[in-house]
């Protein structure tokens, strides 16, 4: 099991760095284009969620655990979660997207407060019929505006 750790300032301008690093890792272990995109989206949305929700995050730590069976277990964690910001309508959207594009998501909570996410994504490296393509996930679709 290989491990990669990335720690970066919890600010919007660094989310593109998190995405590129994620894509590079997923590409390296043989994820296909679609799977790479999925993990990139999930990590990015996990970061968005945390940055949007708390005032006092100074950095995010992203840890990737890479298994021989071509799966990546990614933890995205905030350094501070004591001072919540006001309501944010996009939080729910972030959560929904993370869940839709990954195999399993666990919220890391302490005393009911979300401190981070653990995201499991397994790559097949090839076409899975009705798998992670658009059609396969269509059933989960939900409307956000009327």
């Amino acid at each position: 099991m290989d491990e990669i750790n990335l720690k970066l300032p919890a600010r919007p301008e660094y989310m593109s760095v998190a995405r590129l690093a994620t894509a590079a890792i997923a590409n390296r272990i043989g994820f296909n284009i679609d799977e790479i995109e999925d993990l990139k989206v999930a990590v990015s949305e996990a970061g968005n969620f945390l940055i949007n929700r708390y005032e006092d995050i100074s950095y995010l730590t992203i840890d990737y655990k890479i298994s021989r069976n071509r799966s990546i277990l990614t933890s995205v964690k905030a350094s501070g979660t004591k001072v919540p910001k006001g309501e944010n309508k996009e939080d729910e959207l972030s959560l929904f997207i993370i869940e839709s594009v990954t195999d399993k998501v666990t919220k890391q909570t302490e005393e009911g407060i979300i401190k981070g996410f653990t995201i499991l994504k397994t790559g097949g490296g090839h076409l899975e019929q009705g798998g992670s393509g658009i059609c396969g996930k269509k059933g989960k679709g939900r409307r956000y505006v009327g």
Partner: protein
Amino acid sequence: MFYGIMFLKYQERIDKGVWHMNINIQEKWNERINSWNVSLSGEIDIYNAPELKSSLLKLIDEKNGNIIVDCTNLKYIDSTGLGVLISALRRVKDYNGEIIINNLQPYIYKIFTITGLDKVFTIKVQE
């Protein structure tokens, strides 16, 4: 020489002034179809979504038309970017306009499908 050309291309991008935010927004009013043509390139995320929002709101304020968004060169959009589109759609609907999203890359379309937003916007995917 060769290098000069590469630099020049880069310089052009800087001069356009928005590339440092990883996004390029270009807009043009089309009187005949009462619409704004907006073309997006690059990545829309939590960093530059506010910029997209103010651009779109400015257009809507200027002329209450439809908005036709060309996404041929759009590489990424996150929840924050979707939020901006939703928010713009609300305003456009107030005067019975619509937002049409053209030439989305399939993997970006997927994000719209997952969230059900494919039913809210009129979308055409890249072939």
